[in-house]
């Protein structure tokens, strides 16, 4: 059934001479597109690894095992470990409320959830300075109690949570809206409690979307520069995340070390892309299985 299906599809998609361009035009267009992508994507990406290893593996290893580098790595991991789960729980709660129920102000809520995406990273940092900085709303109170937020780890975490806020929610909301509530209703009718329905039925159904959101959220949390830069204070070995450490090293003309650090982040990006692709394949396969089965129903029961 599936192979027949694929044949049908590829047959349909086979370009006819009336709807496609001559081979030479095709290759010219492909060449132009590839030139553009090479110039703007591949060369910059390659440069990161080339520069990182140009001075040899020894320099590279020394750069990434430097105590300041290690502390930056630790802080970046810590930040992601707080920001990702926090936004994950939020994403699940928000998508459940929005996809499964009707209420007034739903569209406003969706718009507000997207808000951090439309704000410059620098502004995202700025609002936390205005909130917790010395002249900010809670500044005097924090100083009285000897608590530091801005130019300290809490500020970095807060700014990261803010900029990565929508990632999981915006993946899950459309997915759950599309899936509807029938399976959950079926579970409830069969006697499952709310939590059991969620863990046994809803969660398995949204696992790919969830993973997708988490991966994107994590990539941004580890890579965020602007917002974190505003609130960090750039204190070496203490409030430096990996991207900030890259900046410091670069500005000190320590290019090899800067690119060594940058290569770690570039690898994170590549891993993210690979995982993203895998998830897209998985969901596409699930979808086509479903499609095939539905066609089977229509065709022959």
């Amino acid at each position: 059934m599936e192979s027949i299906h694929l044949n049908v599809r590829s047959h349909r998609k086979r370009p006819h001479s009336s709807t496609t361009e001559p081979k030479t035009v095709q290759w010219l267009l492909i060449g132009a597109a590839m030139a553009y992508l090479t110039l703007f994507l591949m060369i910059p990406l390659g440069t990161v690894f080339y520069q990182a290893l140009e001075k040899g593996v020894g320099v590279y290893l020394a750069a990434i095992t430097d105590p300041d580098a290690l502390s930056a790595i630790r802080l970046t991991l810590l930040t992601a470990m707080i920001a990702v789960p926090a936004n994950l729980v939020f994403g699940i709660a928000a998508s459940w409320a929005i996809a499964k129920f009707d209420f007034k102000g739903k569209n406003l809520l969706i718009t507000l959830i997207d808000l951090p995406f439309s704000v410059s990273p620098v502004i995202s940092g700025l609002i936390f300075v205005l909130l917790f900085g010395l002249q900010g709303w809670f500044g005097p109170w924090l100083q009285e109690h000897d608590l530091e937020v801005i130019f300290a780890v809490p500020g970095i975490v807060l700014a990261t949570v803010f900029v990565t806020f929508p990632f999981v929610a915006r993946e899950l909301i459309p997915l759950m809206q599309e899936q509807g509530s029938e399976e959950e209703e079926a579970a409830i009718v069969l006697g499952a409690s709310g939590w059991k329905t969620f863990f046994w039925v809803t969660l398995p159904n949204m696992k790919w979307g969830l993973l997708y959101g988490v991966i994107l959220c994590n990539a941004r949390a580890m890579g965020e520069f602007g917002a974190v830069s505003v609130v960090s204070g750039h204190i070496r070995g203490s409030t430096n995340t990996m991207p900030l450490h890259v900046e410091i090293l670069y500005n000190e003309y320590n290019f090899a070390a800067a690119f060594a650090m940058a290569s770690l982040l570039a690898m994170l990006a590549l891993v993210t892309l690979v995982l993203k692709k895998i998830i897209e394949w998985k969901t596409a396969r699930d979808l086509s299985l479903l499609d095939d089965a539905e066609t089977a129903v229509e065709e022959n029961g």
Partner: protein
Amino acid sequence: MSIEVRNVTKQFGEFTALRDVSLTVPAGELVALLGPSGSGKTTLLRIIAGLETADSGAILFHGEDTTDQKLRDRKVGFVFQHYALFRHMTVFENVAFGLRVRPRRDRPGKQEIRDRVMKLLNLVQLQSLAHRYPSELSGGQRQRVALARALAVEPRVLLLDEPFGALDAKVRKELRRWLRRLHDEIHITSVFVTHDQEEALEVADRVAVMNEGRVEQEGTPEEVYHSPRTPFILNFLGNVNLFHGRMENGRAYIGNSSLELPAAAFQDNQTATVFIRPHLLDIHHQPTESGNFPAHVAHINAAGPLVRVELVSEWGDPVEVEISQDRYRFLALKENDKVFVTPKEMKVFVEDYVI
């Protein structure tokens, strides 16, 4: 376990889905809620299940009010229109779900769950597919999984929402006969929703015809088919020819022709609507003694068990007649023949009252 629907009303915003609906489903019977889309039948089913709450009125199971009962405690089996199978679980896991989610103290042991699920899969003839996923099943198989899953929790009543709606014609027919047999075996009080009159009449013990949020008539399939109480039901339950006429001296006049009425008298000059099913009309080459009207043959479709003759009456209305192949050969009908149409039986509605 009987079901009693008492004066249920349900409103969705401006739209009234159910208006003061009352209905009794006797214990052990299979009842069809039949109606066009938007007639409120699915809403009524969902209210019986507890998936929706009525604005007013009550649902009684075995004389006991369920209004305040939690969905879980109602013990209903519900088969969703699109089955709502858990797509990440196998057939076995789907059917076992209702047993596995029980609180620990009520939960049967592993072996017992296994036995019960396999017994149900046997019943729906799917034991060999226990480890398949829903996406690997055909529509008819999914439907039977949904049924087995609903039955696994030993429901007191079984509710099915358009159970055959998503299937193609051939599977539909097989599956509804199979459902009928299954019901004869397990005798659980069942209600199913359908918009297909053939399905309702063939499968159900009793049929409730719904229209615009009301139950228009409730009875056995024969009662509903042969003694429809409203023009809507007559129209809905199969093809029908419709004539507007007036009453005079106990005869119905349509155009210049008069038709004899079955019985009873009407006041003269009342307008009447006459409904005649195509198979209750006959064709003759000469006028007959009983009422008849002239017409000419417009089109003949002889491919099928019956011959469908489309005629145009003297006054210009289209008329559809079904005659047997034998009769067709005997008459030797051709297009444009002038003929006379005789009703064998008809229904007359005068100002909404039925004779």
